[in-house]
């Protein structure tokens, strides 16, 4: 599951995530992070057999977990399928289909935003 984790400044010093990983059998991948002394947010991908339990634990420790349904979306009306984005994707989430349309796999996308910045027609929408 991909989710934004939000921290309050009061718990910024606690090692909650490492504890969650020690306690539960999960894979935890940080896709983006922005942490300051005034709190912060992290885009993460949590998976594994104890995904549900680990999320419950993280929430109990005071981290707000906001699951995200989508990371990225292609604006079909604006996209001209030029493919400028394809070779820029670090995780190969963007592919050319057989009919030469460009498709972005939301499941694979880590939301780095490099494609969106480089799109000549500004057709890639990143969800915050």
């Amino acid at each position, binding site marked *: 599951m991909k989710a934004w984790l939000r921290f309050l400044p009061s718990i910024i010093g606690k090692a909650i995530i490492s504890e969650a990983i020690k306690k539960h059998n999960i894979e935890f991948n940080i896709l983006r992070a922005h942490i300051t002394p005034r709190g912060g947010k992290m885009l993460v991908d949590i998976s594994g057999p104890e995904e549900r339990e680990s999320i419950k634990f993280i929430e109990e420790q005071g981290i707000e977990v906001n699951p995200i349904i989508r990371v990225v979306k292609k604006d079909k009306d604006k996209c001209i399928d030029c493919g400028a984005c394809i070779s820029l*994707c670090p995780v190969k989430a963007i592919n050319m289909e057989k009919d030469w349309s460009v498709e972005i796999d939301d499941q694979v996308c880590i939301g780095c935003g490099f494609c969106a910045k480089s799109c000549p027609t500004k057709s890639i929408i990143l969800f915050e």
Partner: protein
Amino acid sequence: MKTINEINQKIKDGDTVVVTASEMTEIVAEYGPREAAREVDVVTTGTFGAMCSSGAFLNFGHSDPPIKMSRTYLNGVEAYSGLAAVDAYIGAAQPNRDPEIGLDYGGAHVIEDLIKGEEIELLAEAYGTDCYPLKHIRTSITLDKLNQAVMVNPRNCYQNYAVATNSTDEILYTYMGTLLPDFGNVTYSSAGELSPLINDPYFQTIGFGTKVFLCGTEGYIVGEGTQHSTDVERRHGVPTTSAGTLMVKGDMKKMDPEFLKAATMPKYGPTLYVGVGVPIPVLNEDIAASTGISDEDIICKVVDYGVPRRERPVIKETNYKELKSGKIEIDGVEVPTSPLSSLKRARRIAEELKKWIEEGEFILTSPVYRLPSRGYTVRPLEIRKPSIMVRELESKPVIVTHPDENIKDVARKLVENNINHIPVVDEKGILQGIVTSWDIADAIAKGKTRLQDVMTRKVIIAREDEPVEVVARRIDKYDISGLPIVDSNNRVKGIITAEDISRLVGKRDKGGESI
């Protein structure tokens, strides 16, 4: 074998055989050019690529009182108005005059918005004459209200083009899109076997007056495009790099926004994706063979855009079959590719043009003259004062330091020599890093003592064989004050600062001798 008139008669009778260039490739591969020439009458091609050399003549009509517009702005984008009173030419690559908008909305966007029927703000300035007294206009226009809106693109449809990559360790933003460091990706712009001028490489059928598909309507070729060249290296008859070009014209009022799109190449500028399809009458076996060319037989060159010079080094040769597979190999490493031009829309254009011809809506024309197929080369622009190379700069003996040197000693060196940058080198003089006086101040404030913990390891450098202008651009881009000069072995040879460069530019502007 066949004439254009005979083919046109078949089009009118509704029994012509039209195929797209991709279909023709398969037909020729299976039946051979002789049989293909007998069966097929017309091959349709298509491309939908970023073509910066595009634009449109607009006639606004006369106001009352009348004005002789000397400067015009459309939604903030300047159109060239050094024509008669109310004519202007809007160029696709022109950025917005509002620096906040800049490259995000340029001439291409104005053209697209006009075609979509949007209202555009027109601002015009004039100096005022007896016959044209008005000096200022602010109003709005739409495509319907204009007398004429004629797209005239001086250079479209390059016959093949370079394939771009980047050897440097920095991201480059180019007209070939974003290029990742260390050969991280490859971009190409030709539609390969679908591309119009690749299918008729010696222009046996294409010329002035050839009717084409242009942005969803009929357009015409009005001659060879600018930078048209013919005397280049060829393989299977097809140029291996940019060669022939087209100048095309069409009525914007009839265009379909589906086949034209404004875009901005990040940190490069606005450009217009133009949809062009050229019908090629299959008059003989020779033309059948040319239109039968496959992606695999169209050779092109991967070029290093990391070298910002006119002649960029060729990294390797490839072909469009490889490029369209999504990856090519450079130095044993798989590198992902991006097409930049829309292959999906290129195919749609070829299909659309095929449909028009099949349905008898599009009759072929005989060109008044064929595009020149020999004797053309692209001339360079020689700069009267040649660029000064970094090597030629007057450079004081360079002060260097070593990674194990004490911060205090480094601080002393900075002060004694009245300098702000010190390159850090190893015992062979090879660059390891750089420290500035600010780094030293920062280190002292934070109580750091070892140079290794303070120096910047990823150093922006100047090479001896680079023109000074290229280095000036780098100083601007990274907002730095100076950078070390290194030779081909990364040995430090000197240091160049923003001050050195401005002093140099100052001298040249005054017409003085160059350093």
